[in-house]
């Protein structure tokens, strides 16, 4: 177990290092002089030179990178060019909002994706399976931000049942929080549900070919027991792993969903940062999502390891 964990961690380290190099490299894409951008309205050459010294822009790139990297290891992700506030706490402050959205979205996608996946696996080749496949394909093809706009049109503009957006802390007003979260969570959930359904279907199909499922049937167990107790329980492992790898879809979807519904989360932070040309914030958010993905795949590996006897042996 320890050996496996150590192997996985070691393999993740070069990936993490390369992610930091890519994110650092982003700023080399900036057209023109970085010092001029940092200076804002300041046009005095002496002042610009001062900024260049202050940020170490006269140093060779590798030195700049190592300084940036060392700061980051100490938890210093730079300062916002806009407000001067440290970026790390800015991200941490927004994170719970996006995590709530993501958790609710996962609930939606599980509630939609897993039952439909099971049904289309059991009724493989039937009209139901065919229909579910069309729905999944449509779900993949539907731009989530447009689905969000359509829901606002229906439930906020036409019916006036739900607020069109915004955010209220669940600690202050749980009802108001859920009323504002239900549409965005559904939108983000459908983006995931399609792939969840496809994963569930193929995992169930491969499990149902296994000997233990045949044995369970031969014992005379009811079809319901066979499916839920024997097949689904084993199919859940690949479903959970593949879902963990959908982290990217979830984060990217959150950016658009938060924009549509005006939710002040992690995704809104990066979009606002882009428009304010607040490059350190853009870099820090990009880095955080990359690291988040590597950690999620590590967790998926560990989860897989814990439940799969073949790997353990």
């Amino acid at each position, binding site marked *: 177990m320890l050996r496996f964990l150590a192997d996985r961690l070691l393999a993740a380290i070069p990936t993490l290092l390369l992610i930091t190099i890519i*994110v650092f490299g982003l700023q080399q894409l900036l057209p023109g002089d970085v010092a001029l951008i940092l200076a804002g309205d300041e046009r005095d050459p002496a002042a610009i030179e001062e900024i260049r010294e202050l940020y170490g822009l006269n140093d060779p790139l590798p030195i700049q990178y190592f300084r940036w990297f060392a700061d980051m290891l100490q938890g210093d992700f730079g300062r916002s060019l806009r407000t001067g506030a440290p970026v790390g706490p800015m991200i941490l402050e927004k994170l719970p909002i996006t995590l709530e959205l993501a958790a609710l979205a996962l609930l939606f996608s599980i509630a939609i994706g897993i039952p439909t996946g099971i049904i289309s696996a059991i009724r493989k080749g039937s009209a139901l399976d065919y229909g579910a496949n069309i729905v999944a394909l449509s779900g993949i093809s539907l731009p989530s931000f447009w689905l969000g706009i359509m829901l606002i049109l229906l439930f906020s503009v036409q019916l006036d049942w739900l607020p069109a957006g915004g955010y209220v802390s669940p600690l202050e007003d749980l009802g108001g929080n859920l009323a504002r979260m239900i549409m965005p969570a559904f939108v983000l959930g459908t983006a995931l549900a399609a792939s969840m359904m496809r994963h569930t279907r193929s995992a169930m199909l491969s499990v149902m070919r296994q000997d233990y499922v045949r044995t369970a049937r031969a014992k005379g167990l009811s079809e319901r027991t066979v499916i839920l107790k024997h097949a689904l329980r084993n199919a859940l492992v690949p479903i959970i792993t593949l879902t963990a790898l959908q982290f990217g879809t979830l984060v990217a979807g959150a950016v658009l969903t938060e924009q549509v519904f005006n939710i002040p989360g992690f995704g809104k932070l990066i979009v606002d940062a882009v428009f304010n040309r607040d490059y350190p914030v853009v870099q820090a958010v990009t880095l955080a999502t990359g690291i988040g993905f590597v950690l999620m795949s590590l967790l998926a590996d560990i989860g897989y390891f814990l439940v799969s006897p073949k790997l353990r042996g």
Partner: protein
Amino acid sequence: MAVTGTLQVPERRQRSRVLRRFFRNRPAVIGGVVILITVLVAIFAPLLAPYDPTATDWGKVRQAPSAEHWLGTDDLGRDSLSRLIYGARASLMAGVVSVLIAVGIGVPFGMISGYVGGWLDAVMMRITDAVLAIPFLILAIALAAFLGPSLTNAMIAIGLSASPVFARLARGQTLVVRLEDYVQAARSIGAPHVIILLRHIFPNILPPILVQATLTIAIAIIAEASLSFLGLGQQPPLPSWGGMLNTARSFLYQAPEMAIWPGIAIFVTVLAFNVFGDGLHDALDPKDE
């Protein structure tokens, strides 16, 4: 001559078999027709559009659909139908160009990685892993932010972000094909590596890359629409479907119809590419059925 003759016959037969399988798949054929129509609309936009898509008219702001303006007008009095028609250009161009960029970078990268192997392969694949770790749209947003917002930069950003998928695919395929007899034979007679890669390996790894490219066009069109929706793609006043939805979002209470058609256009086009790609996949690789 005799040798080439015996080689060509099964190849041609195989090609017609693939085509026959594809045409039996009705949704895929419909997808192909929809793609063709969208391409024609984009090409002949100046002939089809009833108005100039950027011509404003302050006397006709946010009008409901009428005989004069079939889909109404937007917040600046521009004809929504004309903007929708011209918007097909931005979407299709972004889809195709960014996938060409992704293929152009990813496929040679992956082929070299898989063909050379060893430590070079290990390093190249770690780089691919690192780019793949950053969520596709986040990387595209970050790249577009640093490059500056424009349709060209959006296409570059999407292309770069999508390239690791092709690198992985090309590498995996190259690893398989590398061991085939014809590659070994070419090697044994001393053919240069470039020739082996281009003439012997590339044609044989092409089918899965084509399938992936079709499906990635679908992803790229949504990504371009997303970037334009966020204001990082096609810049106003030029029309794009994502940009139209961005504008529409501000007028949901005053002009709800502005938000409907651009979304349907994106959805139908993307669905067409997805269905077409799935059909292509099934036709080229029937063992999956």
